[in-house]
């Protein structure tokens, strides 16, 4: 008999949720973690960055205090204290996970796991000892690591990845972010708000390349207004490290440019964390991009071995990992519930924030939909005006045949908190009519959602 019915490798948002779900189904469960409970999300990603961004946002607020009739002179950022608060928040969250594991009777094994065979794992502990455990089912949730490129050598000081930045003790005077995805844009916003001269370079032709083009344009405009230099359609050719700066060689349509900055953030691409777990001993196959190949139930090619979250590819999102964890456990206990990838929301937490679920306008058209689009500008929302954030819009995309909601995009203040109802609307197969006819409280930013649905039907009230 095996030691455990389910073992999960990696205690990030995919792994620990899978562990709790397995335990709730009465399975004898263990989780192996080599560093911190909570994984990247709680320790180096989602949560600590949100803490940083809140500091930046409050600082922005003080800058505009006068517009609100408040006098706040001589407000400065204490950079090390800002970083410390972020680390403290992360620390508290990790403790919370420890409690959840205990409450659900999940055994936590601290150490580095590697396969001995498809049912056996060796756990190498920090004190040099090692232990072998067996399980009927093993869920791999080892996450990702930032991808490195030969021409962008990361040294952790001048050229860094997001993880180095979270431990920065000094605020750089200037920062260049390579990649205008969520990470590049969030750190760009954070450092720019605190007074760093920020440049964001993106090889594709818009910032936030996975988002709707119209939404991305709003973010680009707001960043530009804030003083961030945005360079889209631009390649980084090489980095030239000098004593106290880095010369970044850029190329836009054959036109060369060199920008000297104090620090460079490399935020382009990810790789699966698979190198230390000896996958080959279990015979688990990777896909052509180096992520673990799985089917709709997260099962790998080896029976009883599953993979979830970043290590299984697709979007690198904590909530996607959690739901894949549920799908894997569901398959183990006989209630398969594959993840619907068309309904995974994506959020970026710079201000204005960006939140979306479903198809962008261009993708909807490319997928053959005849679309009906509803827009509502926060400019016309009383609440947005009152709180001093009239920037941004709600853009809803419906399939014209039955008015089914197929894409929802919000850019604006705290947009990420507004998306939930649209994810629900999409899950419930709502049409523009139900969204429009749902009574939204006044005055709230969420009224913009209702108005955008009405706009799609040509009956908008306040625009």
């Amino acid at each position, binding site marked *: 008999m095996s030691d455990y019915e389910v073992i999960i490798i990696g205690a990030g948002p995919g792994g620990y949720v899978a562990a709790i779900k397995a335990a709730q189904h009465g399975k004898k469960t263990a989780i192996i973690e080599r560093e911190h409970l909570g994984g990247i999300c709680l320790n180096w990603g989602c949560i600590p960055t949100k803490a940083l961004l809140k500091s930046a946002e409050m600082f922005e607020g003080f800058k505009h205090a006068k517009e609100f009739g408040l006098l706040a002179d001589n407000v400065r950022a204490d950079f090390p204290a800002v970083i410390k608060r972020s680390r403290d928040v992360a620390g508290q969250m990790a403790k919370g996970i420890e409690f959840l594991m205990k409450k659900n009777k999940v055994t936590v094994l601290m150490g580095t796991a590697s396969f001995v065979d498809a049912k056996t794992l060796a756990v190498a502990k920090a004190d040099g000892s090692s232990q072998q455990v067996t399980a009927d089912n093993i869920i791999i949730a080892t996450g990702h690591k930032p991808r490195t490129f030969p021409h962008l050598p990361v040294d952790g000081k001048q050229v860094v990845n997001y993880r180095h930045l979270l431990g920065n003790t000094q605020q750089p005077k200037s920062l260049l972010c390579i990649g205008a995805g969520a990470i590049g844009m969030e750190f760009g916003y954070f450092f720019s708000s605190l007074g760093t001269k920020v440049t964001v370079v993106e090889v594709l032709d818009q910032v936030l390349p996975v988002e709707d083009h119209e939404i991305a*344009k709003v973010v*680009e*405009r*707001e960043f*530009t*207004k804030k003083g961030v230099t945005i360079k889209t359609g631009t390649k980084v050719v090489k980095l030239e490290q000098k004593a106290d700066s880095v010369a970044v060689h850029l190329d836009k349509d054959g036109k060369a440019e060199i920008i000297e900055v104090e620090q460079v953030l490399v935020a382009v691409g990810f790789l699966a964390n698979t190198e230390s777990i000896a996958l080959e001993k279990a015979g688990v196959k990777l896909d052509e991009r180096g992520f673990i190949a799985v089917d709709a139930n997260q099962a790998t090619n080896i029976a009883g071995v599953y993979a979830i979250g970043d290590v299984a590819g697709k979007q690198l999102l904590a909530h996607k990992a959690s739901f894949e964890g549920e799908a894997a456990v569901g398959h183990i206990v006989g209630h398969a519930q594959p993840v619907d990838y068309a309904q995974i929301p994506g959020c970026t937490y710079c201000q204005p924030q960006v939140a979306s679920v479903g198809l962008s306008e261009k993708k909807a058209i490319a997928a053959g939909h005849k679309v*009906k689009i509803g*827009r509502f*500008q926060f*400019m016309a929302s009383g609440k947005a005006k009152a709180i001093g954030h009239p920037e941004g819009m709600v853009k809803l995309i419906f399939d014209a045949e*039955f*008015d*089914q909601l197929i894409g929802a995009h919000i850019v604006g203040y705290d947009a990420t908190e507004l998306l939930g109802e649209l994810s629900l609307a999409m899950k*419930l*197969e*709502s*049409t*523009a*009519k*139900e969204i*429009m006819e749902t009574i939204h409280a006044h005055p709230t930013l969420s009224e913009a959602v209702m108005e955008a649905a009405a*706009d*799609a*039907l*040509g*009956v*908008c009230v306040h*625009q």
Partner: protein
Amino acid sequence: MIIEQLMPSKSPTMTEGTIVAWRIKPGDKVKVGDVIAELQTDKSVTEWESPDGGICAEIIIPAGDVALVNQVVAIFTTKAGEDIKEALTKAKAKNQKIAASISGAAPSVATPVATAPIAAPAPVAAKPSAPAALPKGVRISPVAAKVAAALGVDVRQVKGSGPDGRIVRRDVEAAAKSGSAKIGVAAGKPTKPKLKVLRPDGAGADVAMSPMRQIIGKRLLEAKTQIPHFYVSESIDAGALVAMREQINVLEGMNVTINDLIVRASALALRAHPKVNATFHGNSIKQYDSADISVAVAIPDGLITPIVTKAHAKSVKQIGEEVRALAKKAVEGKLQPAEFQGGSFTISNLGMFGISEFVAIINPPQVAILAVAGIKDEAVVKHGQLVAGKVMRVTLSADHRAVDGADAAAFLKTLRELLEAPATLLV
């Protein structure tokens, strides 16, 4: 590079806007997000932030004037001193086209700013249509309800696959496809498409022969003129066949067609009649042990005959899956030569068009082809009684150099006996 600045649409009802004031002039450098003008829309005066950066080269619509939404109001360039002559002509032509497209809504030249809001034409999508009244107690998503109304599906008969059995879109679409939950004519709208035959006169057309049509023409001309065809027809009582198909398709995942059953029956019959399962080569005839059946598939601008090899050794389910996979490949043009060259016998089925009967041209070097017509409700005599029955006519075209009338008749007799006792197709 030339960048046209178009009159933006600030609201869904806005059709035109007045430039109250320009905040920029030719020669100014403009950054993304700079306010470039104040606009009077049908609702209010708003600031217009530039969506693009560049250098203002020319202002086309002066302050105080009105422009329709999407008309070019200014031209920016990315570099100073770019030639904009061509761009100006293009912009003016574009503006005229937009003005012409909105009949009766040509912009007044200098509307004073303070006029009352313009009564905008009603937006196109007036009132959202009311959904069809739903039977009480049916849990169904809004989209699924609309799809059901459009496709004439009775939602009371649909089984839901959503959370806790809620009916979602895919359930309604599946029900519509299988025809299992059609609303009666009285309840729903008739969904039969109208015949589109009445139309104004037009010109004829000269259509060039595609390479495929040329090959079809050449091969069939040879076949029809060189092969001494003869034809033998038979009526088959398909009542049991239709009933059995329905029984098989009760199983989840099964979607057997009449054609799959005919391929299977033909394969078995061919094994009993090797003279029909043959190819003709001038001085010799090659008889086959394996029934490798070519199935005629219509593809855009022609037809092709992919082959179900060893059909005698395959189940009805396997045959069906194979035929559909081959047909899909055929339509997509992805068939490999090995998948359509060869074959020992051909079936051409026009049953889906409901036709009564037809004869087919032999696909050389094969020596026979079976033409399958639709299944018709007809009066038949059974045990001396006139009863309602289902009749399917099949016609075998055979090459008299290889097959004699008696051979063809014997083959058809076997085929009929198999199809009229369809359980034989399942062993």
